[in-house]
């Protein structure tokens, strides 16, 4: 049984956390004398008021149940996305109700798909709020709240169960109470390092911070209409590529590498495979672009590397319009949009580890056909995957494919062309951002029908919450055991 007051109290925490970032954005607006100040300040005050309200009544919580943790996690994301759209809605411009919701969901789920035709028309305060949504969404609002949570360890443990997947926990070779600290250290270190490097390479401090938020959170929001193509600077692209790649790897492994532990990105087999798959993609696209005489070899390598890493890491920053690339390259890029980064990272989507385990599982089944009495196990970095987890992964992949197939079908029914429907479904559920067709890398989602925007917003949320959690909550709320 879910205790509603407990859920409300933690949703209050989440609102207060959002209010903090809204106040920071309002401060930026104030110092730049912008017309977004009132919208941001009002939204911040509203969030703070609603967030503080449960504190007046609800007593200190000693422990929360798993179902409550799940409800807080799912509802927390939904409420965050709703309050996140308020400053956009009040400010106006291109933000209608559906556009504001889409932009907010896209930010918090680190999708990075935008409805804006002119990003540069936004005031700095609002641009910072937009970047903040990706920063908050990167490691998840719940984990952020855990960092500052004054409650007991029993409460934190319950959140871990609902927010961090079992597969992800495996590569954190530490006790669960240290996981938040590790994630925070890696996250903030990467952001700081990237900001410094981008600033040194000539970006303004504001742009460097916003792009670092966007890269490390693998989101893809830029402060420029042309995204990274605006800078036309190979060194900026290399820095961003490095951080996109590293942010799409398991943070436990990144931490292991930073602290020179035995279990790190250089010793992890799934990470090797992930890098190999990305390398193959870059190579194939480079060869095709060169062969088709679209660019010289080095130019092809530059564009292919950035786009493959950007989509494979689910970031979505761009340096070129990929919509005009040959179909083989487009299909490869769509594959990377579906495959996504690794578990335990800020990336969304199926996650490479699941695909790796999926194929390992197929291999196991084939062996069992040949040797029915044999005992085989699926392993990841020498750790045996339990049958339950194996089954869970299979179900997740099937559900994932089912969800984006339904979305594709519905988008087609709304009159969108095939490539747009398919790529929009895959990139939103995978929290990637840019698709192909009319939602390609240098286009946006603004022209889509309102119903499509609502559908894709739901898709982004489903993708970020890894689908199963949402269905599990519905089952709990409907009273099914």
């Amino acid at each position, binding site marked *: 049984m879910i205790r509603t*007051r407990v859920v409300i109290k933690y949703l209050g925490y989440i609102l207060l956390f959002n209010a903090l970032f809204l106040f920071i954005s309002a401060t930026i607006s104030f110092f730049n004398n912008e017309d977004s100040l*009132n919208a941001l300040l009002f939204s911040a*005050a*509203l969030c703070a*008021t609603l967030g503080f*309200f449960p504190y*007046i*009544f609800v007593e200190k919580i000693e422990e929360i149940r798993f179902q409550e943790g799940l409800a807080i996690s799912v509802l927390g994301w939904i409420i965050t996305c709703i309050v996140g759209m308020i400053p956009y809605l009040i400010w*106006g*411009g291109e933000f209608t109700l559906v556009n504001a919701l889409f932009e907010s969901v896209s930010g918090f789920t680190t999708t990075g798909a935008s409805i804006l035709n002119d990003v540069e028309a936004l005031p700095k305060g609002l641009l910072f709020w937009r970047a903040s949504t990706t920063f908050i969404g990167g490691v998840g609002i719940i984990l952020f709240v855990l960092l500052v949570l004054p409650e007991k360890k029993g409460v934190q443990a319950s959140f871990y169960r609902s927010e961090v997947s079992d597969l992800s926990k495996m590569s954190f070779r530490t006790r669960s109470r240290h996981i938040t600290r590790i994630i925070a250290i890696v996250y903030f270190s990467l952001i700081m390092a990237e900001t410094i490097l981008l600033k040194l390479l000539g970006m303004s401090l504001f742009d460097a911070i916003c792009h670092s938020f966007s890269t490390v959170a693998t989101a893809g929001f830029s402060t420029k209409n042309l995204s990274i193509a605006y800078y036309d600077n190979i060194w900026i692209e290399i820095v961003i590529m490095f951080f996109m790649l590293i942010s799409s790897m398991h943070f436990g492994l990144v931490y292991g590498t930073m602290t020179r532990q035995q279990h790190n990105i250089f010793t992890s087999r799934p990470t090797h495979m992930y890098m190999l798959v990305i390398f193959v993609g870059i190579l194939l696209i480079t060869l095709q672009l060169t062969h088709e005489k679209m660019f010289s070899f080095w130019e092809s390598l530059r564009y292919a590397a950035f786009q493959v890493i950007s989509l494979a890491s689910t970031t979505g920053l761009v340096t070129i319009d990929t919509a005009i690339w040959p179909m083989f390259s487009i299909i490869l890029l769509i594959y990377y949009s579906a495959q996504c980064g690794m578990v335990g990272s800020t990336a969304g989507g199926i996650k490479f580890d699941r695909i790796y385990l999926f194929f390992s599982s197929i291999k196991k089944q084939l062996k069992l056909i040949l040797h029915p009495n044999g005992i085989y196990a699926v392993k990841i970095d020498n750790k045996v995957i339990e049958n339950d987890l194996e089954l869970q992964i299979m179900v997740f992949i099937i559900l994932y494919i089912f969800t984006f197939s339904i979305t594709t079908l519905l988008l087609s029914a709304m009159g969108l062309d095939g490539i747009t429907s398919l790529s929009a479904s895959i990139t939103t559920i995978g929290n990637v951002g840019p698709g192909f067709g009319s939602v390609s890398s240098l286009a946006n989602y603004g022209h889509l029908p309102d119903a499509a925007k609502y559908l894709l917003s739901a898709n982004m949320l489903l993708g970020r919450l890894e689908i199963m959690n949402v269905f599990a909550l519905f089952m709990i709320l409907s009273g099914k055991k």
Partner: protein
Amino acid sequence: MIKSLKIKILLSFTLLIFMLLGAGIMSILEFRNIGDSVDKVLKNNYQSIESAKKMADALERENNGILLWLIGDRKSGLATVHASDSIIRNAIKESEANITEKGEPRYILAIIEAYDKYHTAVLQMAEVESSLDEFKTRYKTEIQPLFFTTKNAINDLMVLNQDQMNRQSEIVKEKSRRAMMPAIVSIAAAVIFALLLYFFISIYFIHPIKQLINGVMEFYPEKGRLNANIATKDEFKTLENEINNLIYRLFRKKGSSNE
């Protein structure tokens, strides 16, 4: 954790008042902004358009004056030219005193230059004695083109201000939407707030009262104490404790009287 019911209620309503005040202040600020924008449109752009219209009308009249002069009514023709000249120059002065747009001085300078040439040509024609055919030719080749140049320059100024006026009206529209939004958001937030308040009142006020009533109803002297299971540490818990103290005192008194 706040233990006093009074403070809990006070804080709840303070938050509600704070929220509504915030929405009210923001709407007032936005409406004031709209007022300023409307004022700007009326005072600045509309005034400039009016001045340009005056110039255009006076220019037409000056041209009519020349035509009067051409058909022989030289006295009233010249009088019309001079009167119109005075109106145009005053209108130009008005425009110069009301520059609101970027590039507007350039447009006014273009009018002054074109009009000076036109007016000089008109006066020169009036000073020289020629035949009607010669006047007609001179009007067509020299004065009429200068008239059109001046008229176009005036039109350009008018279009500049009209465009800006349209833009301002779009901004006003956008601002009125912005002024409405905080109110709409606040209404939605107030509804959520009211629902939450209702929820908390039923959990932390109604429920303990029901628990106390049930506790009293299920109380038997054999039990020795009332057990209402009040979980909070507020006045309801104090009341439960005080009822138990009362029961204890009554039992003690009854016991001592029995003895």
